[in-house]
């Protein structure tokens, strides 16, 4: 049963977040902006592409490939080209990201089983997208080849056919969105919690709070709960939107994911309380947050894999809660991580959470004066 004092401070802290226009902005803006930013950026790159075709053959098999290409959901338009000059111009002016060129005897070669060739030109200025498109094209051409010459797949073709597990099309979004969950949770929860003590110090209400009979643990719980709720709401929003809107497969255990999230948010709010307790003004608190959040994201494996970091830096990432939660989030969404593996990543998070919460409460107690 929650006593009246604890209830009062929890309610007050929630209201403080909801009624302060600036805090409200912090609550809604970053997740929404990131969401749309990443959502749009990724659709612009992989989907909606235009592919040019110079079909000098006009036979059965070249038409088959072109039709399949046009039917692909990633391709918006197939542009018919009439000469090599036109092909060059289309790539140059970025009308198309890729162009296929069929020799006049392409279908004949296929029919004669002589080993037919398709020429493909990609726009190297957009290397990332071009690489993904090259993947599509190779697959389509391979499929057509296989249906024309059933033995080719197993045959002496000698070409390796790469297949990407978990994310067959290497869709950027499938990979980045689960990682983004860890980042959004960190930014939104920290942004709220770092303000909580600093705001009261700056506005002069802190003394008033300290002379009230509220116990230290009640103040801490009251101040750490709302930011955790904010993180929880934001992450839940993503858990709903990721599979439904972005079609990121949700394959792992949701209860374990939420258990990890709980510890992750606790670790974050503890860290935020440390920053807030040390800051005299809201501005200091904000700067303190950025000083922490940027290295936390960089050292989480979000931008570059931890395995590529120097050994000593990898050790540093062990105390980074974002690194652990990133693994869990990617595991839950893409990898169908087994429960044992999840738990192996959860207990370090729990340790970090306990450490940061204890440190925050010790510092808060010692700085009560």
């Amino acid at each position, binding site marked *: 049963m929650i*006593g*009246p*004092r604890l*209830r*009062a*401070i929890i*309610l*007050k802290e929630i*209201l*403080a977040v909801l*009624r*302060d226009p600036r805090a409200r902005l912090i609550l809604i803006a970053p997740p929404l902006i990131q969401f749309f930013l990443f959502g749009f950026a990724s659709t612009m790159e992989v989907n909606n592409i235009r592919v040019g075709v110079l079909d000098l053959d006009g036979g059965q098999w070249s038409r088959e490939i072109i039709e399949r290409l046009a039917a692909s959901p990633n391709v918006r338009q197939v542009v018919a080209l009439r000469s090599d000059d036109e092909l060059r111009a289309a790539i140059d002016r970025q009308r198309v990201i890729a162009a296929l060129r069929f020799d006049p005897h392409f279908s004949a070669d296929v029919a004669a089983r002589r080993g037919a060739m398709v020429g493909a030109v990609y726009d190297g200025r957009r290397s990332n997208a071009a690489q993904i498109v090259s993947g599509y094209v190779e697959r389509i051409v391979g499929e057509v080849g296989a249906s024309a010459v059933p033995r080719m797949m197993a045959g002496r073709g000698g070409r390796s056919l790469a297949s990407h597990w978990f994310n067959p099309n290497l869709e950027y979004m499938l990979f980045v969105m689960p990682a983004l969950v860890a980042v959004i949770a960190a930014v939104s929860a920290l942004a709220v919690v770092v303000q909580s003590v600093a705001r009261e110090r700056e*506005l*002069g*209400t*802190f*003394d*008033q*709070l*300290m*002379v*009230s*009979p*509220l*116990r230290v643990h009640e103040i801490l719980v009251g101040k750490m709960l709302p930011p955790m709720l904010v993180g929880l709401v934001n992450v839940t929003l993503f858990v709903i939107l990721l599979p439904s809107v972005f079609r990121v497969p949700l394959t792992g255990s949701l209860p374990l994911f939420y258990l990890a999230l709980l510890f992750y948010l606790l670790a974050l709010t503890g860290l935020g309380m440390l920053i807030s307790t040390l800051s005299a003004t809201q501005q200091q608190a904000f700067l303190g947050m950025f000083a922490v959040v940027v290295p936390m994201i960089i050292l989480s494996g979000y931008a570059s894999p931890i395995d590529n970091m120097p050994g000593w830096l990898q050790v540093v990432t062990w105390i980074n809660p974002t690194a652990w939660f990133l693994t869990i989030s990617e595991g839950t969404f893409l990898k169908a991580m087994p429960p044992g593996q999840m738990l192996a990543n959860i207990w370090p998070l729990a340790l970090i959470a306990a450490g940061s919460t204890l440190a925050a409460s010790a510092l808060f107690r010692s700085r009560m*004066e």
Partner: protein
Amino acid sequence: MDDDRTAAVAIGRGVSKRFAPDAPMALDAVDIAILPGRMTGLVGPDGAGKTTLIRMLAGLIAPDSGDVTVTGVPVDRVDRSLIGYMPQRFGLYEDLTVIENLRLYADLRALPLEERADRFARLLEFTDLARFRNRLAGKLSGGMKQKLGLACALVRDPALLLLDEPGVGVDPVSRRELWALVRGLVGDGIGVLWSTAYLDEAEQCDTVFLLSEGRVLHSGLPEDLTGRAAGRIWQAPVEQARRRAMLREALDLASVIDGAVKGDAIRLMLADGAGRDDVAMLEQVAGGPLTPATPRFEDAFIDLLGGGPGGTSALARDYRTIADDGGAAIEAVGLTKRFGDFTAASDICFSVPRGQVFGLLGPNGAGKSTTFKMLCGLLTPTEGTGSVAGKDLRHARADARQSLGYMAQKFSLYGDLSVRQNLRFFAGAYGLSGRAAADAIDRMIAIFHLEGQVDVNSGGLPLGFRQRLALACAVMHQPPVLFLDEPTSGVDPIVRREFWSHINGLVERGVSVLVTTHFMEEAEYCDRIALIYRAEQIATGTPDELKAQVGRPDATMEDAFIALIEASDARRQAA
């Protein structure tokens, strides 16, 4: 008046300003004229529009309507070096030394290089800051900062000197020095505008503009306004223990429109038209003869606003009676606080019995806030002990806190929360829940007339309402002890009267109060006062005992304050 206007250094005609479409008028058709060689006072409570008007006269903001001229030229085209402006805060660069601040202002105001040495020397001598020329401005005392601010405003001979509340944060000794400095400038023919929330400063000005809620209530000689209370101010000596009850009874009479405790006497203002009979009736209440007293500027202001509140406090009527357990309500035994090798408070000892008001007085930074904070548990004393309602602050912090109500200087409420949400939070924080909390909140709303404001954010309330709400939050749980840290800074005198009528009522119920204040008239309400100076408790006694130490029969609380501080300085120098 027309002749005056042609000679005036600065004139504002019908200036109005509104900061937001739905906000009240910050200034409403204000006329003001500042004459050379005169000390013009701009007087009014916080939020009256003083700073807005000063910034307009300095050309920093434009009025919505009306016009401002300085030396006959519209203010937006006037030569800025003719205007000396000393803002309330942020006027100095705290990380620069005294002389660097002067140099910076000389640069900003394009003072020719060859004139500087001579001018700086004169200003430093004039403000007595020559000894501190290489000290950082941030390390100066409040009074010295204001003197430096004044020097910076004077780097070029201004025709108009605008001083925005130069007396704030300055102890009475430095305030008198500052006043004397500015008086000297007026003698040189400069037009000076001195703004203040202290009404006693108004009395000493040559001309006064009294501002309230953006309107000029009075302009002219201060005596003209004070005159309206002439013959209506009476004083009655009363027995110390009875003075609060007596004041309450007197204020409940229809013929008495204002009253206050003055040491061992009560001071009353009768309604306009009250006669001999009313005085006789009062003498009956007081049990002794009434003597006429000199009207003050504040009396006239209160009269102009329609008189103060009645004597009976609705808050006190519903308050529980605090039982007398024989022990002290607040006790300080050898309280000492050191920060490193700096001693902020040294060996403070006093004890406040149940049902008394104890005042902590002293210049800023002297140690009164440190003492106050040690007693309410915000600071842990280095040595000594403090207790509240018999509970030791070190060992029973939470219990001790449950028995105190706390109200701080800047009304530390949650500005983004509505009035009702603030009340709800403080009810809960003090352990009230369910029916008890709802009843307490409803009672506070009714007593303090907050009905119309319950859903307004407390940050948007007028100062008077914020002050009421702060008191409501502090007393909702009916504590036996109240801690008040400069509770009525900046509010208008009516709100201050109302506040003290509540406090007096609570004290009659047995509540004990510890108060820090800058207002000397507020000190008069105290049963006993401790004066803290340079971390030491240099004097303790009733207001009248302290006044008696000056050696003059008509000495004011401020005289006592200054005399005691000077005596302490003299002792220290002799030692």
